[in-house]
């Protein structure tokens, strides 16, 4: 059974990871270089994936 405290902590983590992904994506638009695409795709994508995945796992752990 997941406690309320742990739930909040994991939810905050998931939201923070997605926010980090969005910040990386935002930053990549102000850098006009092929590397910006890589940063967006790899770094931003990893943050997005980690955030969304941890949130979905949290939902599963909590039982919907």
């Amino acid at each position, binding site marked *: 059974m997941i406690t309320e405290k742990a*739930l*909040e*902590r994991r*939810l*905050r983590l*998931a*939201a*923070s990871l*997605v*926010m980090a*992904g*969005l*910040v990386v*994506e*935002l930053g*990549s*638009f102000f850098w*006009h*270089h*092929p*590397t*910006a*695409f*890589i940063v*967006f*795709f790899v770094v*931003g*994508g990893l943050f*997005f994936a980690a*955030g*969304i995945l941890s*949130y*979905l796992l949290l*939902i599963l752990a909590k039982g919907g």
Partner: protein
Amino acid sequence: MLIALIVAALVLLAPLVARPSLTIRRAGRVFAFVVIVIVPVGAGLAGLNEHMERSKTVAFCTSCHVMERYGRSLQVDDVDHVPAKHFQYNRVPRETACFACHTDYTLYGDYNAKLRGLRHVWVQYIGHIPSKIALYTPYNNRECLHCHDGARSFVESVTHRSEPGRMDAIHANRVSCLGSGCHQVVHTVDKLDGLAMWPKENK
């Protein structure tokens, strides 16, 4: 528009980071699902599309040092230079001139071209840049015919109709547009310094 979407997504996420207890109620849980999953996925896909469009520009392609001379070759003042003629006479969109000729006109051609681009970035930073840059495979007539096929200048060309079966051979890529001695002058980057440019360069 996209930047506004990302900023909006960040603003919407802020309350969840500050007060995760919002999700105790059903409405809060729906809100969390929308701002953690739906909005970021939408922003990510829109961002991918934006980066794909940016990566088609000449400015993007020539932003790496190794490609600078290829970009400059578009300004050679000589109509025998195929890329320069296409660029200067607006036969390809100037903004996306590199991509217009170097994508594959197939179902997933744009994505294949971008995957090759990712490999180029890898080589730029991690690998070894070859002294002479060459295409992975011989240039396919398909890319020329995407625009030229059916054009009067192409169909009625005396050279293209000079012998029976020549048009079929061009269509089947058996006779190369670039490699058969017909339109063979492309990016002559090693000879650029001695060539006149259009518009004229200020020295």
